[in-house]
């Protein structure tokens, strides 16, 4: 996939050029491109003067980061304890079935990525599914298909 990497400098300029900024920079890159492209990691290593191996370690250690491109919409199924008890597994099963992908995968048309995440901190509305930036609480099986249709 080809990207325009001009925006990277805008990200770098926001932070001091030290290792302390590494996670913040990677988060901004993740937000910008929905994943961490190789070129961006290489540039980050250079600009922040952090060895590429350390950048790679950090990129693969934390859940927030992904090294593969994601779909236009990321669907996150919360699997926090409250959601688990109130049927998160069933929602996962339904969404996987409906989208014909497993959690962690992206549909072939690159429209949706399905993820399971640990608690999103909206436990009182369990079970929760986050589509893009929008939180959906008390999700029922009958609502699942609507979630995926939602633009």
């Amino acid at each position, binding site marked *: 996939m080809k990207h325009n990497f001009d925006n990277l400098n805008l990200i770098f300029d926001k932070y001091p050029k030290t290792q302390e900024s590494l996670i913040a920079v990677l988060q901004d890159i993740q937000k910008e491109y929905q994943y961490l492209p*190789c070129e961006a*990691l290489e540039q980050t*290593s250079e600009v922040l003067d952090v*060895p*590429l*191996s*350390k*950048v*790679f*370690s950090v990129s*693969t*250690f934390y859940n927030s980061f992904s090294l593969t491109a994601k779909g236009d919409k990321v669907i996150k199924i919360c699997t926090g304890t409250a959601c688990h008890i109130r049927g998160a597994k069933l929602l996962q099963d339904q969404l996987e079935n409906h989208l014909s992908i497993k959690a962690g995968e992206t549909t072939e048309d690159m429209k949706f990525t399905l993820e399971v995440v640990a608690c999103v901190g909206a436990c009182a509305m369990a079970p929760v599914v986050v589509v893009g930036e929008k939180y959906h609480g008390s999700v029922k099986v009958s609502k699942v298909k609507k979630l995926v249709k939602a633009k």
Partner: protein
Amino acid sequence: MIHITINGKVVQAKDGEMLLTVIRREQIDIPTLCHHEAVEPSGACRLCMVEITKPSWDGWCDYVTSCLYPAEDGLIVNTHAPKVNELRSSILDMFLARHPKSPEIRQLAAEYGVMKTQFEEVVDGDNCILCGICTRICDTMGFKAISMVGRGHGKEVAPPLNMAPAACVGCLSCAKNCPTNYIEYNMKNGGLTIWKKDFEMIACTECGATTITKEFAEYLSVNRDIPFDYFEKCDACHRKELAGTMGRIANWDREARS
């Protein structure tokens, strides 16, 4: 100097020196899989755990990794307490389940009475025990070419982006210090391949023997202020050269005297 008691024997130790160092100095055998003196201790494998107590602790004991626990005056250490032994065999059992094919793990586990794991063997398990000796040595040497990637059960040692690591000079320290000989490399026809990266070995200008890679020599020459031509001959030819030089001087001397 302070005094600690190890397995009933009072021994001397330096204040703040790690217990493992003292224990090893006393020739007491306790296993470790993540320890290397070249790097900071990490406390990952947990095999070197020992039982410690002090008279003032009222019978209470603690269990600590000796590689990381600094010696304190009056400490009473038991390197083979029943709980510690049980823990070691349990850990070795876990290792054996994860790396059932590793001869090194099998041998060590057998020493602790674990011949066959009671746990579920990991299918397609490799022999990397994630001790981090390779990555820590690479960091300490200043290359920082490889690192731990991922986390938890899926963690692995890998070069960045899983591509030939630019920072690697082919010193082979990672492979040579791997406790389970997991890291593969290939040396043939004056070349070396490790981490999918190809290197050229410096061949001795006299005899053609090889010692280190060109990249490593260049690194040492630039960063450590060593003339590059030092690396152009092998050690045997260097010795011969020295013998020749000293021989000539001795011969002049001899001729001058006679």
